[in-house]
């Protein structure tokens, strides 16, 4: 259970990026967070594992308050929060196995980390997860030798190695081609139910958000302006979330054509429909 209450994040003295945001995620649901660039999606996710320091408010994960944690207590809390990144953020020069085992860095001591002497149970878990995502045969390959989809699967496995209580995915498919990104979304969806894990996915692609998640949260200017099922995310909701921000000319003048559209379209998000 993740409970976010009155979360505010302000960079310097600018307008807050997140304005008293409330969000509750219970059980093991897959939640899509949609919104234009700059709406605060990424900041929200990064506040949860404190890669970004919240200005005020409260974030509780299964009863533990995360906002006030420091030092070792913060590191212990981070172990329970897996994160998948847009740019994968793998250690390119290390092997796939080392990248996956890095998910255990919060659990092993420095000597074990440096000498790669991970407990046998970790290694077995790593192989099991790699087999689950069908890349176990790459275990000894360098991470940068893999394709984009394979790299993101390594990223997902690394996050799952933490035995997380929640999974955060910050635009996990934005660096991938459409087919591969469908695969990754499907993978996140099925892993969430297999491991009964709540998953928060920041995503630009509204079609994918509707297809692979159970709940959509729409952010605009740091405020939640939509929260509901994919079926309830209508054209009006889409317009409320994205309208007039990314491609103002087109969003206003473009007629709501049902036929395949011609001409230029908004380029900063993939496909909102």
């Amino acid at each position, binding site marked *: 259970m993740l409970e976010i209450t009155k979360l505010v994040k302000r960079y310097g003295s600018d307008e807050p990026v997140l304005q008293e945001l409330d969000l509750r995620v219970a059980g093991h649901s897959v939640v899509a967070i949609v919104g234009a660039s700059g709406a605060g999606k990424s900041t929200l996710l990064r506040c949860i594992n404190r*890669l970004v320091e919240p200005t005020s408010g409260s974030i509780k994960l299964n009863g533990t308050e995360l906002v006030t944690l420091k030092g070792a207590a913060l590191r212990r809390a*981070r172990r329970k929060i897996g994160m998948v990144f847009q740019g994968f*953020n793998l250690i390119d020069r290390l092997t796939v196995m*080392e990248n996956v085992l*890095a*998910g255990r860095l919060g659990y092993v001591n420095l000597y074990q*980390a440096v000498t790669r002497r991970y407990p046998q149970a970790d290694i077995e878990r790593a192989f099991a997860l790699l087999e689950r995502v069908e890349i176990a045969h790459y275990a000894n390959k360098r991470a940068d030798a893999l394709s984009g989809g394979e790299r993101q699967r390594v990223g997902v496995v690394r996050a799952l190695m933490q035995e997380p209580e929640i999974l955060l995915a910050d635009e996990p498919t934005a660096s991938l081609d459409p087919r591969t990104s469908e695969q990754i979304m499907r993978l996140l969806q099925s892993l969430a139910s297999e491991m009964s894990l709540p998953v928060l996915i920041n995503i630009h692609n509204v079609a994918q958000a509707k297809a692979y998640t159970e709940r959509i949260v729409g952010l605009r200017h740091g405020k939640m302006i939509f929260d509901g099922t994919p079926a309830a995310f209508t054209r009006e909701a889409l317009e409320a979330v994205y309208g007039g921000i990314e491609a103002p000319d087109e969003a206003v003048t473009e007629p709501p054509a049902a036929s395949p559209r011609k001409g230029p379209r908004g380029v900063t998000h993939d496909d909102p429909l």
Partner: protein
Amino acid sequence: MTTRSSADGERRVRRTWHRPPFIANRALRYGLWLAVAGYLVWALGTLPFNWERIAEGVPRAARIFGGGFPPSFDRADLLFSGFKESLQIAILATLLGVMLSIPFAVMAARNLVPRPVYVVGRAVIIVSRSFHPVIVAILFVAAVGFGPLAGILTLTLYSIGFVGKLLAEEIEEIDWGQVEAMKATGAGYFATLVYAVFPQILPRQVGLSMYQLDSNLRASAVVGIVGAGGIGSTLMNAFGRYDYDFAFAILLVIIAVILVSEGVSGWMRKRIW
């Protein structure tokens, strides 16, 4: 051209072009040249050149070079032991310097350490870079006496400064996403350093070490002249005893060794990149 000439026909402009001068102001431009020429004349006129002494020196230089021919390899054992010492100094100083440069480079990287630590790290690097090895060698010879220890200490300090500075700059430009990914797993500071930072700077580190070995070998000959051991000391003794043929042999061997080390390090660096 023929199709377009009708369109541009009316307003034909002269199509000549000159590169705009670096200093736009004409007076300033020629004034600067004049000032440089004036300074040169003044400097040459006022510096104390003793033309009589120079006239005496030319035949003396001819005598030295004459005495150097043919180079004498009669005392090859002395030559060999001198070079062995130089090589040992260079290798030891490189190893020590490169190892010590890593912690100082981390301390001097703005993105990894708090401000006070950064200031200390930068200070160490700046101090060890501010003096030429010969000056440092004079100090160390005074401190620990003639011999290879002074040479090792000198070149170690020199290596820390050079490698540390370039490595710190490399650290400041790493891909921060990998650091975030390690932090997100709950990894501690040093585990993050070992996993997310060091692999990224490794190729640069190896290249710099190779270059530093090369450079230390050269410098070890120079610092020997002020008494810090190695072939430089042998060379100085040969000059002191007017053994110009032996000195000339030493110079030839130095050139040969530098050429070989340059070739080897260039080849190795090419393999690693």
